[in-house]
């Protein structure tokens, strides 16, 4: 008799994990290529979006967020909720500073200094 948490036989098949692994490696390759395409400020947007997608795959499949106990979702979502509070509240400070980004910052591909800042 099995009395512990069971992994459903379908979930134990390695193929979905191998496919996800190949997809994550492929996405890592795409992320690397975007660094050399001269995409300007879109490059970090693409790279961090890819990282978020890869992380979602890791969390849901490899960290078995998909599956019992479903209370795991509350913990996982709360982490990102608190993180969004941290980022949001911190940015209300920085975004309101007239001297931020600093005036001496020169523009460069990637993140550019805000043009309307004094």
């Amino acid at each position, binding site marked *: 008799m*099995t*009395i*512990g*948490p069971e*992994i459903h*036989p379908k*979930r*134990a098949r*390695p193929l979905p*994990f*191998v496919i996800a*692994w190949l997809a994550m*490696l492929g996405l*890592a390759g795409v*992320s*690397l290529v*975007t*660094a*050399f*395409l*001269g*995409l300007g400020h879109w*490059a*970090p947007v693409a*790279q*961090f979006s890819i*990282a978020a997608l*890869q*992380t979602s795959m*890791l*969390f849901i*499949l*490899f*960290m*078995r967020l998909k599956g*019992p*106990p479903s*209370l*795991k979702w509350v*913990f*996982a979502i709360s*982490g*990102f909720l*608190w*993180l969004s509070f*941290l*980022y949001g509240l*911190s940015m209300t400070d920085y975004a309101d500073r007239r001297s*931020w*980004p*600093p005036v001496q*910052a*020169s*523009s*460069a*591909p*990637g*993140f*550019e*200094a805000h043009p309307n800042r004094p």
Partner: protein
Amino acid sequence: MPASATLRPEIQFATLEQQGDAAQLGMWAFLVNETLFFGALIFTYFVYRISYPHEFAVAAKDAVLWCGTVNLAILLTSSLTMVLAINAAAQGEPRAMKRWLVVTAALGVIFLLVKGYEYYQDFQDRVVPVVNFVAKPGEGAAGELFWVFYWVATGLHAIHLTIGVGLVLYMLLWRVRRGEITPAYYAPLEVVGIYWSFVDAVWLFLYPCIYLVGRS
């Protein structure tokens, strides 16, 4: 008599399944703290990167791209081998479980070795703030901020990965040998797997922060 034959839930749990669920939730609660820990670090990075875009682009060109990329592939692969070990444990295949755990720990050690080589290169390139640092033209004082982030972030990540390797070895050399990981109860291994993949996820974000800046 193997320990698995007498495996019973701890006194506060009704069943092993309940005990396993509690163990998983405990790890997730810990990872919420870790998310905020690394999240705050990366937020600081963004504040400085937006403040000094040119300086960061110049400084980041000295980061050893191939080391970071190879290590990314190693960590993604180790997450796969870890989950294969858990699946093998669930299906009652101890030989396969041990094999995948050995591969996972080996990949973790290879990551650390590549990282160690990269640190050596960084020292040669004189990008170690306070200890051995020379600012490049166009980098300014803000370039040093990039390298402070680099050493703090990769150092903390390496500590986490070292703990992960230790946990995998503990599973392999202690819990598995004592017959405590069985198809009936493999939650300890699953909890280590959750931690391992989280450390992998942290690197997914550190990689573009450090290695993909200022390349075009």
